[in-house]
């Protein structure tokens, strides 16, 4: 039997992730204060609050199509959290939603495809490459880990694998020198510090794993 995710399950999962991200925002603020301008906690709070509102009573609430629902969540995120991470994460959800459009339910491979579509969109939109010390460096290994999972793997295990790979990717950013965005202004001094956006990705997958169990 293959594992699948329905529209309502996806909505509940997103809401759970949003709750955890809002709760844990201070860790991101601290990391961004080290490497950037210290607003990433505020950005995730604003963005995920917007997602929760969209899912509860906004235009995503009444949207039956799971892809369009995700797209609308992405738009709400970008509108309310217009920083680099906000613009990119918003675009990621929007593009991921486009990949899921028209589906009744998504299997694990659909989910991995959607994340990969999002990753490609981010690379185009933000102009960063792998190794530039950004959230891409957490998303990319997460997709690889998702692909190794069996189609019948429980959702919790699937996201746990993604989360572990993303966290390894985030840790690996410590060895990198920032090439793009605000952190690049630190030049060599950026080495040794973890990229906050990459850590945010790892936190999102870990939250998804918790809420799938």
């Amino acid at each position, binding site marked *: 039997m293959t594992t699948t995710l329905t529209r309502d399950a996806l909505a509940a999962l997103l809401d759970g992730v949003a709750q955890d991200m809002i709760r844990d925002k201070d860790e991101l603020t601290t990391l961004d*204060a080290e490497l*950037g*301008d*210290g*607003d990433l906690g*505020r*950005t995730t709070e604003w963005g995920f609050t917007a997602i929760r509102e969209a899912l509860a009573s906004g235009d995503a609430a009444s949207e039956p199509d799971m892809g369009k629902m995700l797209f609308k969540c992405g738009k709400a995120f*970008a*509108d*309310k959290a*217009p*920083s*680099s991470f*906000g*613009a*990119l994460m918003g*675009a990621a959800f929007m593009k991921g939603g486009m990949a899921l459009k028209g589906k009744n339910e998504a299997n694990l491979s659909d989910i991995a495809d959607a994340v990969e579509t999002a990753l490609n969109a981010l690379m185009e*939109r*933000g102009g960063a490459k792998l190794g530039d010390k950004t959230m891409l460096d957490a998303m990319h290994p997460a997709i690889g880990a998702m692909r190794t999972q069996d189609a019948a793997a429980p959702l919790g295990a699937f996201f746990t694998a993604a989360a572990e790979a993303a966290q390894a990717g985030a840790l690996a950013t410590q060895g990198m020198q920032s090439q*793009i*965005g*605000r952190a*690049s*202004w*630190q*030049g060599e*001094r950026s080495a040794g510090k973890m990229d906050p956006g990459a850590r945010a990705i790892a936190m999102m997958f870990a939250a998804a794993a918790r809420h799938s169990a």
Partner: protein
Amino acid sequence: MKKILNDPKHYVPELLKGLLAAHPGRLKMADGELYAIVRADAPVQGKVGIITGGGSGHLPVFLGYVGRGMLDGCAVGDVFASPTIDQMYKTTKAVSGGAGVLHLFGNYGGDVMNFAGAADLAAMEDDIEIATVLVADDVASAPPERAKNRRGVAGMIFAFKIAGARADEMASLADVKAAAEHALANTRSMGVALGPCIVPQVGKPTFTLGDDEMEIGMGIHGEQGVRRGTLQTADEIAQQLIDPILADMPLAGSEIALMVNSLGATPLEELYIMYNYLAPYLEAKGVRIYRPYIGRFATSMEMAGASLTVMKLDDELKRLLDAPASTPFFDHSQYL
């Protein structure tokens, strides 16, 4: 947090409402959006519209430069946060007088990505021709090889002035864009921070500095600089800000516009003490100060510190610099 405010969440909307109430003959909302402010007479038919955008907390940057001879509009973000695509789009539309719109703003990730989205939208929905120029003048933020990566600071004001004057000459979008690029190719900045500011919704200082510390090269949102050390004398500070500019852009034999800018709390007195060192120092290097601009042009609320901006001039830049410009925060006649 020692600020005169009501509720941190209302900081930006209340200041914007106060601004519109104070200058009703000069400024208005675009399409009823409080975070999209344009000249009262926008759009000016046949003239290239110029807009900027960026976080609040830097007055007179950004929206203090909306007015005759400078900007047509400004999309406003929360404190130190980018405006949204929608706010940028509304601003763009409201200043479009048929000759295209220039997006002229600082090189910050959120702003860059959102302005790209707004440009797509304006081109797609309204057939407005958009040109984009990024301000990346802070020499402390990246070496010359990665100059495109630099952040945008007070140099944007010279770009607003030059591009605005060129647009007032009814030049084409391509020519206004070229004027902005020409100004910025000749503009460099560097700053020093002595004390932090507090983002109202955060409630604690953006960074901490020891009682006798300063940070050379720090960015206007508290981005790390090139060197943190003991507070030095005004002459030493001035030299450490001007030398990297001189190294990045040789100036011997040139005329320049020199901006000595306070980041907020630092008083004008201290800027003149710096100028007292800089004027003979530059003269000895064969640099002539054509016009000094000494004051608060780009701030970070109550941050203490200062920045220097140099624009190297030629005849065209001089003509455009000296053209009239008038906003509720800046009247160029003061500097003539």
